[in-house]
């Protein structure tokens, strides 16, 4: 018989591993209207998911099937286009959209997203924010050429760097960086709070440097049968990932391992935790 199970520890561990209890056993493969670049047409964070409006509902349905109970899945367009994943940047704290976003779209986003997510439109010359900013909930990598002094058209009308706006809205620490010599950091890496996948030609020194900056384990890999544009081919959050149907099984396994998606059924977790929980048998 068990003498004691530390109830506090148990509940704490369950709380920490809560997202994984919902997890799919593997990253989901899907297509947007026969196109495997899933990260272009969707934006997935821990607090919400944005999906482009497609001709058929299949794209939206896949996201809905995975996520509907947990986070809001919102169909939207940005600047009357469907490539929303590459135009906007966001995490659970906020969402940044380019200045080309129409007023109606902005209002739709604000109405559909939970209140703790700050929706902000910014006047930035580089308007494809999804290509320029890669972020998770704590840290962000930014394009080196983001506007330095920028008039913010918030009511107070003061000058503010785009970097400051990112830090303020997304609640992250911002680093201007390049990945494998590419300035479009947002497109060549996909990061979540638990791991990151970067451009395959990133050198080991770069990988280490980025890893220390982001405080997550990083792996250089590909997606969609060798596509280097990681963020365009897949989208990920702390417990799920969606990638294009061209992604090979090897790539999927790499994704699952680096983003730690392979947490299986609750029973397995408890089995692993059992040893640390039980003091001894009587």
């Amino acid at each position, binding site marked *: 018989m068990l003498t004691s199970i530390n109830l506090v520890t148990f509940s704490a561990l369950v709380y920490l591993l809560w997202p994984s209890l919902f997890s799919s056993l593997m990253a989901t493969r899907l297509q947007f209207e026969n196109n495997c670049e899933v990260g272009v047409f969707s934006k997935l964070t821990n607090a919400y998911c944005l999906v482009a409006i497609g*001709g058929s509902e299949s794209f939206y349905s896949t996201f809905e099937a995975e996520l509907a109970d947990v986070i809001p899945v919102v169909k939207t*367009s940005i600047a*009357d286009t469907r490539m929303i994943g590459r135009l906007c940047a966001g995490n659970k704290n906020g969402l940044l959209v380019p200045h080309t976003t129409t*007023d109606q779209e902005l209002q739709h986003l604000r109405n559909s997203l939970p209140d703790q997510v700050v*929706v902000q439109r910014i006047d930035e*010359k580089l308007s494809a924010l999804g290509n320029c900013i890669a972020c998770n909930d704590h840290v962000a990598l930014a394009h080196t050429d983001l506007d330095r002094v920028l008039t913010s*058209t918030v009511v107070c009308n003061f000058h503010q760097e785009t970097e400051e706006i990112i830090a303020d809205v997304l609640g992250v620490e911002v680093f201007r960086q390049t990945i494998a010599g590419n300035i479009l950091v947002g497109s060549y890496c996909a990061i979540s709070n638990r791991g990151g996948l970067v451009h395959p030609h990133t050198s080991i020194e770069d990988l280490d440097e980025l890893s220390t900056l982001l405080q997550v384990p990083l792996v250089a890999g590909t997606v969609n049968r060798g596509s280097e544009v990681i963020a365009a081919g897949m989208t990920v959050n702390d417990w799920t990932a969606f990638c294009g149907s061209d992604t090979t099984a090897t790539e999927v396994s790499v994704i699952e391992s680096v983003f730690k998606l392979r947490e299986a059924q609750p029973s397995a977790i408890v089995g692993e935790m059992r040893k640390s929980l039980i003091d001894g048998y009587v």
Partner: protein
Amino acid sequence: MLYTRRDAMRLEKCWFCSSTIYPGHGIQFVRNDAKIFRFCRSKCHKNFKMKRNPRKVKWTKAYRRLHGKDMTQDSTFEFERKRNRPERYDRNLAENTLKAIKKIDKVRSDRAATHIEKRLKVRKGKERREAQKELEQSIHLVKAPQVLRQDQSLTLPKIKVVVSQPKSEQNQAMEE
């Protein structure tokens, strides 16, 4: 079919003259540094192409504001600023905003009119004083019209010439 929303109407301001650009009017020019210039009509567009500075062109709002012809600082301008952080839709708020827009517009135009009135009032007094002075100083230069008519040196003498024209045979025939 592509499903795209095309109801994104927004009333913009002309970059040159600052008037509102309604849908279907004007030209938008996008420069290589991604700055967008919107013009309400070809007049403004052509002035821009000539590299004219709107602050120096008299009929633009920019000039008028800069030279104090029009009201510059007022609390009503705050309502019209472009907002980048929206608020959740609330029906009451929307209704009140629509009512408020009308009121604010009226208040703003009244204040602008008083500003111009005040500016012109100063001139009226000055004009009056100048007219008064001129009356006092130069009244001797002015002669009454009656006197002008009677004065022989100022008017040409009237000469009466009698003209007689014989009636021709043709005319007589036509009259009958």
